């Protein structure tokens, strides 16, 4: 393929593959040399093959409110995102530090609340926060772990500039894409994997199972820990992932209708009667977990599971109430939280954040709306946010009214110059903005970070929104070995 096919935008953004047109950065050298000798048509055909592969295995997501005819694929781009061994070592250390701090914070905030006493974060932020579950106060989860599974969202803006965008300490999703994307790349480009030392990600399901089993309650009635995945059901947008993980771990995939509380345990209805579950990896939100404790209308949970939990007879992963750790109102305090519990400076940076609840910040935000990203404190998935530079005057004005009405409901951040990685387009490579979600497993005695993760990519030129619900795609993420 000839050079003029490599489109480069202005140098405004850090491109992870190319230093300048035709000149790859070191981690991408081998891939780029391979790519140069490939024919664009063949690669485009491979791209179409990947899509039919995804359809056949059924890795689709349902769109809420639409019928089953609308099972959609998340678009997959065949150009990998490459991370060098050195870059990964830093990320790994930073993520582990952060995840340990989050677990220490959760234990503290539901017990002695030392961090509030020390005045490091304001009491009101916890007191008035819906993500803080009073039901968890004084309650120690079996094994002592709060967030068994974390998906830390990272963005990059320069050579060594990584920021944590969100901590996703509730029920991070997307790990099935990490695994299936790799599977697809292995099938399509086996030669690349023999040439490059790409670290495997395939151990994740076994690590997940071990990690969950390690958090088994002490007084389990079973000979071996019985683990199950709780899904809201076949119509949930992430059902594929729930089934995929249960299958890969070799554990049962259960729904509310399979479960009941019996003799002090949560048990599943099997062909031979009810069997107690030790560890429930639930993909159901706190609110729906137990109609007797939380939302009484929930059909997705297990009535009485919180009583079993309080008695120490089941491990719920992640623990209820972990949402307080990834709440956007708390995000700006993360560097303090890391320092408070680990005694070290945070290795990974936080994005500078203005809390609109504070008068000075609000003033600054209002004056600079056109340049900022403003997010709802409790929002997720890219909904309900304002991307200043991309918004029209009308949109900004409308948002300003909302912001003035409920300032405490918002935080603002500078528009980050997210790094780009090229995707394959009809015309060849073209840079698009990306983020990265590595997956972290926490058990009572260890933290495992799978080398890789989910790279989400905004497929629209210039777009900074990578969410799949907003037209984003994914890439395979290659962490290189030493």
């Amino acid at each position, binding site marked *: 393929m000839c050079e003029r096919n490599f489109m480069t935008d202005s140098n405004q953004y850090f491109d992870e593959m190319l230093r300048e047109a035709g000149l790859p950065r070191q981690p991408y050298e081998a891939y780029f040399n391979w790519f140069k000798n490939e024919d664009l048509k063949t690669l485009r055909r491979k791209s179409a093959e990947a899509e039919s592969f995804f*359809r*056949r*295995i*059924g890795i689709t997501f349902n769109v809420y409110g639409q019928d*089953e005819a609308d099972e959609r694929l998340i678009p997959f781009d065949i150009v990998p995102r490459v991370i060098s061994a050195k870059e990964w070592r830093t990320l790994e250390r930073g993520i582990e530090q952060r995840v340990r701090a989050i677990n220490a914070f959760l234990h503290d905030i539901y017990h002695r609340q030392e961090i509030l006493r020390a005045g490091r974060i304001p009491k009101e932020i916890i007191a008035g926060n819906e993500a803080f579950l009073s039901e968890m106060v004084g309650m120690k989860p079996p094994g002592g772990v709060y967030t068994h599974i974390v998906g830390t969202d990272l963005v990059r803006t320069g050579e060594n500039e990584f920021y944590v965008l969100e901590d996703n300490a509730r029920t991070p999703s997307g790990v099935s894409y990490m695994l299936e994307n790799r599977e697809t790349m292995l099938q399509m480009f086996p030669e690349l994997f023999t040439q490059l030392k790409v670290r495997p990600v395939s151990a994740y399901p076994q690590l997940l199972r071990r990690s969950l089993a390690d958090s088994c309650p002490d007084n389990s009635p079973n000979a071996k820990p019985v683990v199950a995945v709780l899904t809201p059901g*076949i119509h949930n947008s992430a*059902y594929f992932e729930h*089934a*995929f993980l*249960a*299958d890969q771990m070799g*554990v*049962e*995939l*259960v*729904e509310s*209708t*399979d479960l*009941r509380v019996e003799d002090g345990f949560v048990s*599943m*209805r*099997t*062909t*031979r*009667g009810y*069997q107690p579950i030790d560890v429930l990896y639930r993909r159901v939100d706190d609110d729906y977990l137990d109609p007797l404790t939380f939302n009484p209308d929930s059909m997705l949970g297990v009535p009485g599971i919180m009583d079993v939990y309080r008695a120490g007879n089941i491990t719920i992963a992640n623990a209820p109430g972990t949402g307080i750790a990834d709440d956007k109102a708390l995000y700006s305090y993360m560097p303090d939280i890391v320092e408070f519990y680990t005694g070290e400076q945070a290795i990974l940076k936080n994005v500078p954040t203005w809390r609109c609840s504070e008068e000075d910040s609000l003033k600054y935000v209002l004056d600079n709306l056109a340049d900022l990203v403003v997010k709802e404190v409790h929002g997720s998935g890219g909904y309900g946010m304002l991307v200043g530079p991309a918004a029209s005057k009308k949109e900004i004005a409308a948002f300003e009214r909302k912001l003035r009405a409920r300032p405490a409901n918002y935080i603002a951040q500078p528009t980050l110059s997210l790094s780009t990685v090229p995707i394959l387009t009809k015309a060849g490579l073209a840079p698009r903005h990306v983020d990265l979600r590595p997956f972290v497993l926490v058990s009572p005695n260890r933290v495992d970070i799978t080398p890789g993760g989910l790279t989400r990519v905004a497929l629209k030129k210039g777009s900074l929104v990578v969410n799949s619900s907003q037209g984003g795609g994914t890439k395979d993420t290659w962490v290189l070995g030493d």
Partner: protein
Amino acid sequence: MMLGKTAGGLFWMFRYLERAENTARLLEAGWHIALTRADGASNEWQSIISTAGMNAAYLEKYDSYDAGQVINFMLRDKDNPSSVMTAITAARNNGRLVRTALSSEVWEATNECWMVLKDLLSRPVTERAMHDILTQIRFRTSVVRGALHGTMLRNDIFAFSRLGTFIERADNTARILDVKYYVLLPSAAFVGSSIDNAQWEVILRSVSAERSFRWLHGGESTPATISNFLILDGRMPRSLAFCAKRIGENLKHLEMEYEAREESHVQADALCHRINAHSVDTIFEEGLHEFLSSFIADNAKLAAHIEEDFRFYG
């Protein structure tokens, strides 16, 4: 041991797959008659609808048994729970539900079967497309069956899948015979004589057995030989005796694996014994229609016991 819901999902997944195949076979038989008989075959189209037990639903939409209408009703009508598309969709949905119990080959074959047929059946089916579509249905469902046999452990998962297949198949064969029982009745005028060619051909074709029947019985197609073949011949994979035997075997497997004998085991043994105790003569003495109706009822009762004994539902 497995989730009751999963056992139920497997059972129904394979019932629906079998149903889709059976519906396609029925249609193929009717289609063949329509093409080869000068006097038309509107009676055949009607009996296809009757065999599927869909008379009421059909008559709600149409007032005549037109080939095109019947074909589309049986292949792709969403209001018809036995149409190929409805059955394949239900099979696939159950497959998604029990994804963790299936090998990836079985799941992918099921998903691909659904994708291909969804595409083929997204538009009204023309006569010209019939051959292709029927071939695809046969081919795609065979791939699922092949994957099941080639890749699944022979454990309770397999047993529940097979139970679904044979319960559905037994029901289907019994219905085909029951709809045509009047043809097989040895009325005074016809005793010992060959029955109407077209009629027995439909019966045999709709269970894909015209060739094997010819191998075994040559030209002798009497009510007795056909009834014997489809009810009592243990070599014929769609006969009632064959299905009952397989149901019994799969339940036996569960009895051994779970070390528990349930009501469904008792019922299945009774079903087998009843068939084995009969000859064609005693069946005709009892009355073919009576025999078939009570078989259909017993088979349905057995299915209900399986659902209950193995806790398919909460």
